[in-house]
């Protein structure tokens, strides 16, 4: 056995063994459990580094490298092909889990003596599952003999774009990050200790994981847009839904946990949401990795499905049992002072999000349900999800403003109406203005009005407070959570506007052009200048060089490509994108004439797509601002 395979297997099985020991000893000897968790982190780091080294050096005796490696692949893409296929991505998953576990245990090593052993036990248990999967059905360190001279290279779609380097790690940081709040939830249910410290810790971890998950979702859309060549960014594909589902439960949880913190209420509800969020991360992985549902991304069938099923069953049943038998001990200690308060708005928001989550979950699973009960295969796709999510999203956007305008405890109706007076005027006035600019779709008008309403409530409050405190930045120093939250909300609004306009007003033209012929789309003229070929190490590229003019003036050259990979018949198209704040021009080369004379091009003009990516950036900024209280000693 080659050295790397040996190291990899020793590390994986070593972590497995140490986790099993840890589960049984954590309560008797927490000091030992700590060491075992650190050891797991060390071992998984070693295994992951070993794999990266094997990928970089084309060590084809390692089964995973033989599966996704190729000498021609540029080294950057070789390194990130760690997560281009099943085994490698589970390895990364295991590493992230071990890192989070070690960090969590390290941070709270001297506190919460009653909780921590159970936190460790939960993390060990989750670890055991991933180490088993890594050790048996998805072992990336099998010895390959005879050693092949070369490999097929990673999936062409995954070696096309730098986003592939960022999106999967972010997703895992988000997904796996949900394990820590889950571990604390389990620990508190088992021990019956459910103090406010617990809430604080959970909130920080949750917000961190939520931030990574948000980044991952946005980057996933961006990747889909920049690589897949169909001009869209979200198709309600099962794998996209899988990443969205935990987000839809984590987001309301971030809010309802504040009610618990302030009022001592909703404990049972919050525990249920944490548990659901964690289970949804497992479910998402199961659905997309086991080939149960048809998805763009499902890595071909593997024996991994059964392992995940068993893991989900165990996790579901044990946490459900805890929720049913143990959680009711946490009686609600608080009351509302008035029904008209921010608490109520938060609860309503929770309801909307839970319904949203239910819609996505039901739609994703419905093909299975229909097949099981009716024996008929059906599809549930974009038209259904769009129809259902549109009203829910609009209600959520509106509620965002209302919630901000309503104070905690007792809302004064007079103050409330004073706060929303100007925002409401702005919202109403926006309708004829947007109409005047030619956007006459009712949904668009509503989206703009609601967005402006909530946006201006937040901006007005921030402006007023900045004047009061004579500094804009003081807002974030004094109340990082509130104003960090505002910024994140503004990011959501920016995304909502981007989604609304880009999906309602996409223009498309397809044409077959010969040299120097052009097509016209919106203000743009696309002229085919020439077709040429390029031989890259790992692929053969056919490139259409086009000159873009806007209103008659040449503005740029765009080069959509078709890439041919030796392992794949169908070429992979790389679109060319010219992004501006107002709109994107998106060109794909669909086909070309073998003699190099003509090209079939598809041109799309999509308004406001880039707003979605910017909105994602704003959300990250907001989360970071809100998290900045992490290091700050608690005031009051």
């Amino acid at each position, binding site marked *: 056995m080659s050295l790397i395979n040996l190291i990899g297997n020793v590390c994986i099985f070593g972590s497995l063994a140490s986790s099993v020991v840890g589960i049984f000893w954590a309560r008797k000897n927490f000091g030992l459990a700590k060491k075992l968790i650190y050891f797991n982190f060390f071992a998984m780091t070693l295994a992951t580094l070993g794999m990266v080294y094997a990928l970089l050096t084309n060590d084809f005796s390692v089964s995973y490298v033989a599966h996704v490696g190729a000498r021609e692949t540029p080294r950057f893409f070789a390194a990130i092909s760690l997560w281009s296929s099943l085994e490698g991505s589970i390895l990364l998953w295991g590493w992230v889990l071990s890192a989070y576990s070690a960090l969590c245990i390290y941070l709270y090593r001297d506190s919460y003596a009653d909780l921590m052993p159970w936190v460790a036990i939960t993390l060990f248990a989750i670890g055991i599952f991933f180490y088993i999967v890594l050790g048996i059905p998805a072992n990336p360190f099998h010895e390959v003999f005879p050693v092949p001279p070369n490999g097929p290279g990673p999936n062409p779609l995954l070696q096309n774009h730098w986003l592939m380097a960022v999106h999967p790690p972010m997703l895992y940081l988000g997904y796996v990050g949900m394990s820590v709040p889950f571990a604390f939830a389990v620990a508190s249910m088992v021990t019956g200790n459910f103090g406010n410290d617990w809430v604080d810790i959970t909130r920080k971890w949750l917000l961190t994981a939520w931030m990574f998950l948000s980044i991952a979702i946005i980057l996933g859309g961006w990747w889909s847009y920049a690589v897949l060549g169909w001009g869209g960014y979200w198709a309600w594909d099962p794998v996209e839904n899988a990443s969205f589902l935990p987000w839809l439960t984590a987001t309301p949880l971030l809010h309802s946990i504040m009610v618990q913190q302030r009022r001592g209420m909703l404990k049972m509800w919050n525990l249920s949401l944490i548990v659901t969020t964690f289970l949804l991360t497992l479910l998402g992985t199961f659905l997309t990795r086991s080939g149960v549902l048809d998805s763009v991304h499902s890595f071909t069938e593997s024996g991994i499905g059964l392992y995940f099923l068993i893991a989900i069953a165990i996790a579901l049943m044990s946490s459900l049992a805890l929720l049913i038998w143990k959680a009711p001990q946490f009686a609600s200690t608080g009351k509302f002072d008035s029904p008209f308060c921010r608490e*109520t708005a938060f609860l309503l928001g929770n309801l909307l999000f839970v319904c949203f989550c239910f819609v996505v979950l039901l739609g994703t699973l419905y093909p299975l349900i229909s097949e099981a009960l009716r024996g008929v295969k*059906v*599809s*549930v*796709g974009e038209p259904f999800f769009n129809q*259902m999510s549109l009203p829910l999203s609009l209600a959520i956007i509106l509620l965002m403003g209302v919630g901000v305008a309503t104070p905690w405890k007792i809302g004064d109706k007079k103050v409330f109406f004073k706060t929303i007076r100007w925002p409401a005027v702005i919202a109403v006035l926006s309708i004829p203005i947007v109409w005047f600019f030619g956007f006459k779709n009712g949904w668009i008008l509503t989206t703009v009005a609601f967005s402006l309403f909530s946006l201006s409530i937040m901006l007005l409050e921030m402006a007023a407070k900045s004047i009061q405190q004579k500094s804009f930045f003081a807002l974030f120093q004094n109340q990082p959570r509130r104003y960090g939250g505002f910024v994140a909300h503004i990011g959501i609004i920016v995304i909502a506007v981007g989604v609304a306009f880009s999906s309602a007003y996409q223009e498309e033209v397809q044409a077959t052009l010969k040299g120097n012929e052009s097509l016209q789309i919106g203000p743009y003229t696309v002229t085919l200048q020439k077709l040429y070929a390029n031989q890259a190490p790992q692929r053969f590229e056919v490139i259409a060089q086009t000159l873009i003019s806007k209103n008659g003036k040449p503005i740029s050259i765009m080069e959509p490509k078709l890439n041919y990979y*030796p392992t794949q018949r169908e070429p992979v198209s790389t679109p060319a994108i010219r992004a501006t704040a107002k709109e994107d021009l998106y060109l794909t080369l669909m086909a070309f004439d073998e003699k190099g004379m003509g090209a079939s091009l598809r041109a799309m003009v999509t308004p406001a797509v880039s707003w979605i990516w910017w909105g994602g950036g704003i959300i990250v900024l907001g989360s970071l601002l809100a998290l900045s209280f992490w290091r700050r000693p608690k005031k009051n």
Partner: protein
Amino acid sequence: MKNFFFYILFFTMAVPALAAKPTPLDPAMQIKARAIADQLRCPVCRGIPIAESPAELAQNMMQEIRNQLRQGKSEEEILNYFEDRYGEWILLKPKPKGMNLTLWLLPAALLAAGVVFLFFAVRRWSA
């Protein structure tokens, strides 16, 4: 040598044929065609509608929609045409009948039940 390999590959493997220039439809018909194509699942691309798919089969199906529209067929007839051939699976939004209705009714019921529950709960808590 590798170059040679690629050229062989290049000329023997799929070179997507240039689509025949589609006879233009008037704009109203275009919109209609697009609306129909948005509801049909591309059989080879997993999950996206044929309106958005660059795949050859999706393009052919798009062409078929245009042809049928030109023959004066209605949206329903065209959707039925595809459903007859590819099964209910081809429709991205299941037909709202029978068990499929649960897709709409369950979320609506959940929302309604939630609102009623919240109403009474908040009233009780703030009593």
